[in-house]
């Protein structure tokens, strides 16, 4: 009674060849067996409470940037994503068709950024991200995962980093950045394997691969602030984690073990990590839990909190404020994930002349639509990703109209997502990391 058929989609149903290839190898029995095993072994109290408690009230719909950007398409309401995936798995006792499985895979991997905004809009606090991760884990177990993110997961497993960076390439990149920086500051160092240093600095795989200037800037900042710091020579330097998003939690556990143990081996007092959101999530309350560490075994400080601390202690001084008006994009994994929004604002206000708030902001900011592994599903889904975040474009345009010329986003995925949105919707706004601003404005 009264369920509507989904509106005809203007895109082909399955865009990724690896999803199709993976599903073709499966019979309905295979699918049912894995789904039922998963529900039996890992579908615990939260899984059941969430599925039983959802009253289909629709409070969550208005939270989701997919739903809002795509003309309130009912299928894109958070609860609808659960209904089409786990709802079917449970209703049909696992005996779902390959088509349902493929659709579920696309919904869980590419129609949800696991940003947890909807969790704040649900009267019951139902964690749709948790449920979508459950679907992803089922997909992982069945070998039905989008090609690009699966390849990234493979890279993680083979190299302990996201980008197939070989051990020597990593060290070489650091030494190259150190050489470059020494042209500016002759006695600068990127200390490798310095045992007992106060700060163990870790980054994500794309930094050495594509954005090495961020390592350069971080080194200059550490130098200027007089920080006793180090980076590791060995695998473990990458704090990122796409396995958390493909559902390969065993591999997530391994990645985090290597990362934490390299910082512990060097006996640093804490890990400071670059401006990445998902890596923070993985290190702060996901990967450590898979390993049995209730909290990270060594304090983890996100770059935003670290900058704020350095400014507050006077170790980092602003020589001249950034003149162009800026706005700030709150990344979900460090705002809903760690409440760093006020610290970020404090850094922005101390370093920029004019700060213009985006609306909505802080915990209620809209996601970039790149996070949660969605951008890592690669080119097949780029168009959808951009179209599914018109609300972000409108939000940026409104900030632009108020005068903002620069949007600061202290997260790599947000950068990727916002760049595509800015380009697609032709918004005249430049995107920067917080460290880009600090590097330009601080006393060196």
């Amino acid at each position, binding site marked *: 009674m009264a369920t509507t058929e989904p509106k005809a989609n203007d895109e082909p149903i399955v865009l990724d060849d690896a999803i199709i290839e993976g599903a073709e190898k499966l019979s309905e029995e295979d699918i049912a067996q894995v789904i039922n095993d998963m529900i039996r072994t890992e579908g615990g109290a939260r899984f059941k409470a969430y599925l039983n408690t959802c009253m289909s009230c629709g409070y969550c719909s208005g939270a989701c940037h997919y739903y809002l950007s795509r003309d309130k398409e009912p299928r894109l309401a958070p609860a609808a994503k659960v209904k089409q995936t786990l709802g079917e798995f449970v209703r049909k006792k696992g005996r779902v068709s390959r088509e349902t499985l493929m659709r579920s895979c696309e919904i869980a991997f590419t129609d949800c950024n696991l940003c947890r905004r909807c969790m704040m809009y649900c009267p019951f606090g139902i964690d749709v991200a948790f449920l979508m991760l459950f679907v992803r884990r089922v997909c992982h177990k069945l*070998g039905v995962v989008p*090609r690009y993110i699966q390849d990234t997961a*493979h890279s993680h497993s083979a190299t302990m980093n996201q980008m197939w960076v*070989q051990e020597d390439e990593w060290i070489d990149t650091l030494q190259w950045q150190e050489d470059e920086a020494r042209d500016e500051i002759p006695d600068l160092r990127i*200390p490798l394997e*310095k045992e*007992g240093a106060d700060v163990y600095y870790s980054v994500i795989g794309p930094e050495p691969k594509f954005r090495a200037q961020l390592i350069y800037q971080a080194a200059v900042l550490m130098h200027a602030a007089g920080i006793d710091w180090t980076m590791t020579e060995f695998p473990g330097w990458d704090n990122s984690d796409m396995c958390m998003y493909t559902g390969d939690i*065993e591999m997530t556990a391994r990645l985090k073990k290597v990362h934490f143990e390299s910082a512990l081996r060097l006996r640093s007092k804490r890990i400071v990590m670059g401006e990445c959101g998902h890596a923070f999530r993985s290190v702060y309350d996901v990967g450590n839990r898979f390993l049995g560490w*209730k909290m990270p075994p060594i304090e983890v400080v996100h770059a935003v909190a670290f900058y704020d601390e350095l400014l507050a202690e006077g170790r980092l001084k602003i020589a001249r404020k950034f003149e162009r008006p800026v706005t700030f994009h709150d990344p979900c994994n460090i705002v809903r994930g760690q409440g760093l929004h006020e610290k970020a604002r404090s850094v922005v206000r101390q370093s920029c002349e004019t700060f213009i708030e985006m609306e909505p902001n802080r915990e209620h900011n809209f996601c970039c639509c790149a996070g949660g592994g969605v951008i890592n599903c690669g080119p097949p889904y780029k168009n959808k990703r951009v179209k599914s975040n018109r609300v972000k474009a409108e939000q940026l345009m409104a900030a632009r109209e108020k005068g903002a010329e620069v949007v600061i986003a202290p997260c790599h995925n947000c950068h990727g997502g916002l760049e595509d949105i800015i380009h697609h919707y032709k918004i005249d706004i430049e995107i920067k990391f917080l460290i880009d601003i600090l590097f330009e404005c601080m006393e060196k």
Partner: protein
Amino acid sequence: MKSMEEWDWAPGKKIVADLEKWQSGYAAVEEPYVSPDGEKIAAIVKTEEESYTVCVNGTPWEKTFDKVWSLRFSPDNRAAALVSDTAEWSVAVDGATWENWFEFVWNMQFSKANSAIAVAAQNARSYFAVLDDTPWETGFSSMNNLTVSRNGETLAAVVQTTAVKEGDINAFQKGCFSVAVNGVAWKNAFVNAWEIDINPDNRLVAVEVRHSLYDYSIAINDEMWPSSFSAIWRPRFNPVDNSVTAPVKSAGEWCLAKDGELFWERRYSQLWHHFYSTDGKSIAAVVAPTYGKWTIAENDTPWDLTFKELVMDAVYSPDNRHIACLGKTDGKWYVALDGKAWPTPFDRAWPPVFSPRGEDVAVKVEIDGKYAIAVNGKLLDIPFAVAWNPVFSPDGKKLLVKGIGTGKDEGKYCRHILETESLPRK
């Protein structure tokens, strides 16, 4: 090679070097490293000519280089570092470079028993290992987890035997990684292979592998255990009978497996870093009996004492009668011995060191920004600005303590020999 017995164990304090003086002689001095016997202190220094070298006890190596990094002392007290000249890299030991130069070298390791030096190297995107200036004959398209055996005779590493294009997930899942032992790869390939252990006589190499995206096992000399698990950690050889144990995850919980079969009875929330007594009769491991509680289990019996944040650096005493480890709770580090924690915690602590007969435990610790050595729970009254791990003499009668002093000894690296009789008792 001078044996430990031949080190200078005469009690007293010796000022080995005044590091403040180094500062004036060079454009830059990096953090210092100290030899195991404490007789030498070395640092990478930048000369006034914008080149780099190593300064040992105030005397620089004759040669200078474009770059020097990874300075370390070998167990037999030689200073070794990775050096580059005209964009080529090699290893310099006590100032003399190897004959071979490479496009890059890294991951310098020493064999514990005889100080053989191993590095990972790369030429023309081909990866291989080098042992005491002798490179492997074969190179691979990637190499990780380089491991050197105790006596330095065997080098093993995880290598990629089939190249995969980025994005070719099917080829990857067929298995492209194997283990190369002294440059010769095993026949079988795995989806992944990680940490390696080599048995005492070098004949056996064990590695943790994943042979599908879901199945983890242990391979020993190219032969996999018949059983698989949902996750696994590093395998270890029994030092006496060559059986292999590894922590494995089964039905959502961790357990120790031996030769492919579940071995321990208890199930743990986590179990890793297991280690043997030298007689091979006992196994201990770092475990979390329940979520978020950490301790040591010896032969499947966990201590009652647990720590909230972590347990690490666990070690058997040489006589196999005691176990010491570090534990961390609420940001403070504790030293625990046989299930009892020392009463005073520290801001940081380093691996505990047993005396040869296991009666004393010494640990480098940090309190209020200063370093000191704690023995049997009490701090020695020698404050340091920088300290290194203490060393007991082979007869257990002396303790070597090394560090850069404070106060009138500020900037001075000192070597102290203390009589263990004078140390705080348990």
